[in-house]
């Protein structure tokens, strides 16, 4: 097996058609928690909610066209993944977060040392590999969906995931199934 294996974590079952028909609020409520997790997998924890919120704001502003897409959920995930890995955009989110004069939120719950190490290793991957890996893990996405989300081919995604897997194993001192 050369690409990352999806973790056995249940992804939320939702209907893209329902999202298209439904209100933005419904879409937001369904999509936000895991979107924040995606952002947290790709960006520092204190920025995750702001990054996810920024992606949702873009979707909200363009909801008329976004809701007409076949998969609005994939669109907002791509936006979030791009925001999370863009140093420039992240800096904007960071500045926005620290210059906000009111409405401060409690800090995000900390991960265990091993959990933090794992996601730090994901974040240190090249951007596309990190995005592919985070989508794979957080959403349990098949290759075709990751490819559709990132706007690339399945072959490219497979290559990204394979390389990510090798780097992660090496960084974390872990074994892979093909080694065993």
């Amino acid at each position: 097996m050369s690409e990352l294996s999806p973790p056995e974590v249940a992804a939320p079952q939702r209907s893209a058609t329902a999202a298209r028909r439904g209100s933005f609020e419904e879409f937001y409520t369904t999509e936000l928690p895991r979107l924040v997790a995606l952002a947290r997998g790709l960006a520092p924890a204190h920025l995750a909610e702001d990054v996810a919120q920024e992606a949702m704001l873009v979707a909200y502003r363009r909801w008329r066209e976004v809701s007409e897409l076949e998969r609005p959920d994939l669109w907002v995930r791509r936006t979030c993944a791009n925001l999370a890995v863009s140093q420039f955009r992240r800096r904007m989110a960071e500045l926005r977060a620290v210059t906000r004069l009111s409405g401060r939120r409690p800090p995000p719950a900390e991960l265990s040392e091993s959990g933090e190490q794992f996601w730090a290793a994901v974040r240190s991957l090249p951007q596309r590999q990190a995005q592919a890996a985070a989508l794979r893990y957080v959403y349990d996405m098949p290759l075709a969906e990751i490819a559709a989300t990132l706007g690339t081919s399945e072959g490219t995604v497979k290559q990204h995931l394979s390389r990510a897997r090798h780097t992660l194993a090496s960084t974390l001192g872990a074994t892979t199934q093909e080694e065993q």
Partner: protein
Amino acid sequence: VTDLDTLARSATRELLDRTTPDVQTRYAELQRTRTRRTTARLVAVAAAVAIAAGGWRALAGHQNVVDPAPAPTKVSNGTLLARPASRPRMWVAVEGEPPPESLSQAVAPYATVQFSADGTELVYGDRTGKIIALDMRSGEHRVLGDCPDQGCLFSLSPDGTTLASLGGGGIELTELGGSGEPRIIEVSQKPPQGPGPPAWAPDGSQLAFTTPDGVHVVDLATGDGRMVHAATDPVGLFLTVSWAPDGSALAFFDTQDRPRKGYTETDFTAMTVHLDSGTTHTLMYAGHCACLGSAPPTLTWSPDGTGVAIATTKGAARPGVVLVSLDGAEVEQLGYGSFSALAWQPLTE
């Protein structure tokens, strides 16, 4: 040795378990942000229309921290003042009428010198720590208040009511004639101390400033800040930012390291960034320096909005003060020498 898939499963489960945003609160926050940004866009459009129609005053009273300056129907370029890099109290005219001789005796070293929004007064910090407004026609002066800091480094709002300066907590806004207690705008990275304060947007709604990382804009009504340009290489120098007269764009310097033997100089490139689209344009290469004994370049947008005046530093193709068209294609030499600050008078009809 743990299997990678086991690690991944465990880390993902933990990530999902511990990522529990308050969806309802966040949704309400999203709606407020959307409303705020939409309002800001509408205000910007309305301001542009009002300026075009000469009806700027009609906008007074909206939620800005300060009122917009009265905008005339036509603005042209008046006197361009410059401070020689080696003479921190002297101001000379690069273009137009020379300033009163008394100015150089009165102004504090490196203190702020700026024109009022209508161009009729020159505002500066004097050697006694007072803020003075000098009438350019009559030569009479009046005291506006006290400098907010020892160096008299402030920026007076376009409506003449509020000072922006750099304080211990970040950007401080002090109302002239008010209680003296500044309102603090916290910023993640304080702008480096230097010969200048943050720059007010022409409508008084925002402040622009630089940090080593780049150029930032803070909305004063909401406190929201954003980085509008990330520096190619961070540099710990105060650098000037100048607003386009219509508030749509900023002129600034991008910085890039220039390694030398044993030390690093900085290359400065004058650029503009359009605030809505984020589009940047390069105006010109403005030189390079280690800027220990010499001044970094400085700039100011021309009051008529057609170009940017740049005081270059060593290594620039055109040393001195030049006026560059907004597409960077035309460069006009205005003066020679090394200058550390510029102030350009708007002439209004």
